[in-house]
């Protein structure tokens, strides 16, 4: 918590693409500490691709992704591991390991990266499960959990090593509005209580307005960012009419 990681993501001249096709061309933005930052855009605008580059799953064609000042794209070995430890990721399909219980899933990073006793690991994993409201489902397997519960378990696993950043890929995809609102409340709570920084890719306008402080909008036609600012500001004042429409129409 009091970890002094200068918690900032800085994307510099990032160019990403595959197979000779450039999806995003020299984009720049920063995420400040404690922010809930949303990446918006129509389907096919490269949101998920951008996220995969931010978390180091793909190598960019050019540019840098600095996570508290260290370049993830060029880091190797121990340095890379140290950067990876600074963030957790919630994947769209939750990506829980089906052969383990919810508790074992959450405990896995503790088992692999710490030398704590079994009691301590269970205490910590249980506290994370309680934090997301899943303490009573600790011994259940992912197949027995509902979609919303799986997302919560995925969040618990992502935050078990106390990262300062949490990346969320479409957190409300496939959830009903009430479960989705519950997840938004959880994200707000974590952002406030744990002082974590969130970066989320989402379509769900309700959750954008509910949780995000700032957003960037990607446009496939310019292969980059066309608008940046607080979501409600963009809805009313974005320079591009389609961004205003995009943020209004779905909200209606």
């Amino acid at each position, binding site marked *: 918590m*009091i970890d002094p990681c200068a918690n900032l993501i800085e994307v510099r001249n990032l160019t990403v693409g595959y197979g000779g096709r450039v999806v995003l061309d020299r984009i720049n933005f920063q995420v400040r500490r404690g922010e809930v930052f949303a990446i918006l855009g129509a389907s096919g605008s490269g949101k998920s691709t951008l996220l995969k580059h931010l978390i180091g799953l793909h190598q960019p064609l050019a540019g840098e992704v600095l996570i508290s000042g260290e370049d993830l794209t060029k880091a190797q070995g121990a340095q890379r591991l140290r950067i990876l430890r600074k963030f957790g990721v919630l994947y769209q399909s939750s990506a829980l390991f089906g052969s383990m219980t919810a508790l074992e899933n959450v405990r896995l990073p503790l088992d692999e990266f710490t030398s704590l006793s079994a009691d301590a690991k269970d205490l910590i994993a249980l506290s994370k499960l309680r934090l997301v409201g899943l303490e009573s489902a600790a011994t259940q397997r992912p197949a027995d959990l509902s979609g919303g519960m799986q997302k919560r378990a995925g969040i618990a696993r992502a935050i078990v090593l106390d990262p300062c950043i949490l990346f969320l890929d479409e957190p409300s995809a496939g959830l009903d509005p009430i479960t989705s609102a519950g997840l938004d409340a959880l994200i707000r709570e974590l952002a406030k209580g744990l002082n974590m920084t969130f970066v989320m890719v989402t379509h769900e306008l309700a959750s954008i307005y509910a949780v995000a402080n700032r957003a960037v909008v990607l446009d496939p036609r310019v292969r980059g960012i066309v608008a940046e600012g607080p979501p409600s500001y963009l809805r009313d004042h974005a320079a591009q009419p389609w961004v205003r429409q995009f943020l209004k129409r779905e909200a209606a």
Partner: protein
Amino acid sequence: MPENDAVNPSVRWDVLKAEGAVLLTLHGDLDVASTPGAWDALEKELKGGEISSLEIDASNLTCDSAGLALLYYMYTGRMTPGATVRMSGLSSELQNLSGSFSLADFQALRSHQPRRRSFLEEIGAATASWLRDLREQVEFIGEVAIDLSGSIFHPRRMRWKEVFRVFEVAGVNALPIVSLITWLVGMVIAFESAQPLAQLGAQVFVANLLGLVMSRELGPVMAAIMLAGRSGSAFAAELGTMKVNEELNALQTMGLSPVQFLVVQRVMAGVLLTPVLTMYAMFAGLAGGVPVMLALGFPLRMVLQQVRSAVHYGDLAEGLCKSVVFGLVVSSISCLRGLQTGVGPQAVGESTTRSVVSSILLIILSDAVIASITYTLRQ
């Protein structure tokens, strides 16, 4: 307490003891790296004496979840049983976070015992699942037979393109490995049998033996086992993944039967390709024996003459008949195992294993049945 400095440079503590009351003052950073050592050291230090009250001062302490777990563990009195514990100086942020720790959850987890089944229950469950599997197999055979005959009488209903694709992948692409293996097996059989036959002066009959073994037994069996390992497992994995991805559900809600749409073409391809693969395996096996015979000093013409005299059309028919049955059995049981796949990635692996095991078992069983039938017919 300077002795802990060497172990955990980032966290230190002072212990003041007076008549059973202990004041523990923590300084520094209790994080995931320093907590394990501090946990052990504190446990050793506190567990020994008679302690009636413990006061923890955390005002100069920063910590993460691991450190909080230690504080919580001490706070709930698990290190000092019977003592009253008080904690002070925890920052409000940490207090928020420590609210998520719960001893009740921990005890619930410890007392949670997965229900064990008794031996009798295990036997009952195994029998029930075996019977269920048998029933599913019978139903499946019926469904495949109906759809297959439907496709024979109405050939337009069959997706022939898919049949030929499977034929190519499972048959044509298997030729190199089938030729290599049967060629080597033929060579080994010829080589091994030549030694005992030499004692009887009957080395020339190695060719007869090889011809009979290859046409009646090893040709079909080797080709079928290759099909089970190479393609049957692929059928099971493919259909299993489709089931996991809900593609099979999509077919069903479109009103298409997965058997009609996916299984029938694979079974048809299997039945068409095994006789061809078997013929090929027979010749490859014989070809493996030829170099051995040549090395033993028999001319090629004589070897072929011996084979021709030993192998009759009946033997060839027996081999091909077996191969058709094997093709049917392997491709259908593999598809069935694929369709029976449960939930998750593990289930796909399980059904792949089950497809290969069931295929090989059924190959050997049906081989024995056909061999005894043909033996009776020959009498």
